[in-house]
């Protein structure tokens, strides 16, 4: 292997010499999907497009999502639910689970992944908050945090997510601006548009290849 610095230098010497002859760059108007100004329409678009890719979307008012979540947990016999402490939703979860014995228990993620990994890989479901949603492209925005680490939306086979209807924007470009994305985004930021899927065998669409098999979203108004 040649000297690392000399590789870098050689590459930059060539790059600088070879970009000297600048090519013409045409001026083009930016591409920004037309904003959907009506909130109801925006939410409807989000729900329609998310559902089209096999995401289960439930539109609920206020704290109704907690009861709906427990209902789904019971219905599917999910063995437990991993969540992060100290978030918008954690108090509600903890209160609702108090004394509940007939559904899978709540499991807080409190340790580093190294200590928690094996338990997480065996988990039944995980729940996260979101930064919002994008209607035109149908995706949720997740900014994993110390409370809700990256693997919480990836490893458990069922992912529950809570999206506030007020935080649904028309396009990715709009969300970038509204969230001051460039300045504020964390170590890992994600757009998630559905359950994990593949079409690698005969282009047949199949769900649940590596990540969650089911994505269940509560749109809260």
């Amino acid at each position, binding site marked *: *292997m*040649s000297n*690392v610095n000399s*590789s870098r230098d*050689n*590459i*930059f010497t*060539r*790059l600088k*010499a*070879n*970009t000297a*002859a600048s*090519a013409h*760059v*045409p*001026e*083009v108007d*930016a*591409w920004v999907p037309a904003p959907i100004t009506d909130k109801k329409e925006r939410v409807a678009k989000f729900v329609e497009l998310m559902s089209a890719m096999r995401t289960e979307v439930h539109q609920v008012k206020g704290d109704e999502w907690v009861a709906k979540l427990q209902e789904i947990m019971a219905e599917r016999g999910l063995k437990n639910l991993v969540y992060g402490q100290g978030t918008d939703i954690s108090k509600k979860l903890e209160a609702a689970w108090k004394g509940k014995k007939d559904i899978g228990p709540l499991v807080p*993620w409190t*340790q*580093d*992944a190294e200590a928690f990994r094996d338990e997480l*890989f065996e988990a039944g479901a995980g729940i996260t908050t979101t930064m919002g949603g994008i209607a035109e*492209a149908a*995706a949720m925005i997740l900014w994993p945090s*110390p409370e809700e*680490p*990256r*693997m919480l939306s*990836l490893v458990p086979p069922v992912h529950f997510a809570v999206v506030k209807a007020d935080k649904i924007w028309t396009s*990715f*470009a709009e969300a*970038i601006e509204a969230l001051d*994305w*460039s300045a504020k*985004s*964390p*170590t*890992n*930021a*994600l757009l*998630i*548009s559905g*359950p*994990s*899927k*593949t*079409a*690698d*065998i*005969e*282009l*047949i669409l*199949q769900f*649940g*290849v*590596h*990540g969650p098999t089911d994505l269940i979203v509560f749109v809260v108004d």
Partner: protein
Amino acid sequence: MASNAKFNFKKSITDALADKQLRANFKFATDALRGKRLAVLSDPEETLHLRKVGNAIKRKGLTQLPQLLEKLEAKCQENGIIVHWAETTAEANEIVLGIMEKHSGHKVVKGKSMVSEEMHLNKFLEDKGKLPLETDLGEYIIQLNHEPPSHIIVPAVHKNRKQIAQIFADNIPGVSYTEDTTELLAIARGKLREHYRTADIGLSGVNFAIAESGTLCLVENEGNGRMCTTVPPVHVALMGLEKVVEKLEDVPPLYRLLCGSATGQRITTYFNMIKGPRKAGEKDGPKEVHLVILDNGRSKILADTQLRQTLQCIRCGTCLNHCPVYTRIGGHAYGSTYPGPIGEILMPQVEGLDKKGMLPTASSLCNACEEVCPVMIPIPNLIRRLRDESYDMDDDGIVKGHGYKKNRLETMVWKGWKLTQVNATCNKLMLLGVQIFGNMLPKVGPLKAWTSVRTAPKFARQSLKDLAKKEGIRNE
């Protein structure tokens, strides 16, 4: 696939054309992918606007490449990402191995990366006693069968489900033959989740690298990319140096173009943006993130403003799906990491016309690739340019291996032809010769090859020029 001297393009084309199963598999897949693309990029006006935007972003990026890469490096380092530079694929391989050695790593889980294919990284690591494991389902299938990808987006597209069932049964211990795709998926999921949990290193490609913030963007559907970049303690990202963009605002149009063109999706399941290793207080994510930036001939391609356009490519693979040649012979026949129209212009520039100059001959110049290219690369013109440079009649070629086809006979024939077009006496003699002897030419040599699949034209007794003169049409 390594470019070996023994590679015989003509034979591999003939073999591929004779393989009915292969042709059926490719026809089915590429027809479907074209249809899906149209369903998403359904508004021609908007699609053209998007393509113009994509073209402008990539063009501008290429003119500012050194500045953008310097910024990317500085921002990545600020974010705690360790940046490496590799001039050649051999250097890039050594860098990856060095990182593995430093962590006493043995098992590396890989997300899909065409740059790693370009490096032949798996073979290199296996030779060093390491265990590289492909995790993208398509890549997993072909790795089991010891094959390279046949398509840059859907790597196992040349296999149907029966063939895949057989590959699983033959290569995974304890698995019996099943054509049930749900079962096949469950088998792969079970095996691979265990590997993510226990891997030493996670490896990925990069779709866009944002210079202003030092962010690596990965586009995927399966979740294997997120697994590889999140679960193992070390993440190594590989990128070609043309993948850098200036700012986050450049990403939404390019992302839409990539998804729409590649798989006919508005958006993929996951868009994964990585800005560094695990920070204090965070509970997961790799503790070390490395970015390997590979040149491998790219910085040379920049020099010529026409050829430079090759580097606008975002690797969506839609030119493959629209190519009348690729859809009939498939990816392996090209014997190159990148097949299809983009491979025809990229590979000769990277490896030299003397080694890959036959690739640009596999085109009917129908222009389909140019019409669909999301960043408007004029592929047919670049194919013409490379064909020209293969003969290098005017001795002004710049691509490595230019003039490899140059020979005295053809040079003389074309010089003679030129003479008949500029000199009136020579022109008359030529026309007379063709009228008398044209239809008696013996079908031997190149003429025989040419006429074996075409009807030879009949020369008229009188030239168009003479007829026009007789009709009284004045030559102005």
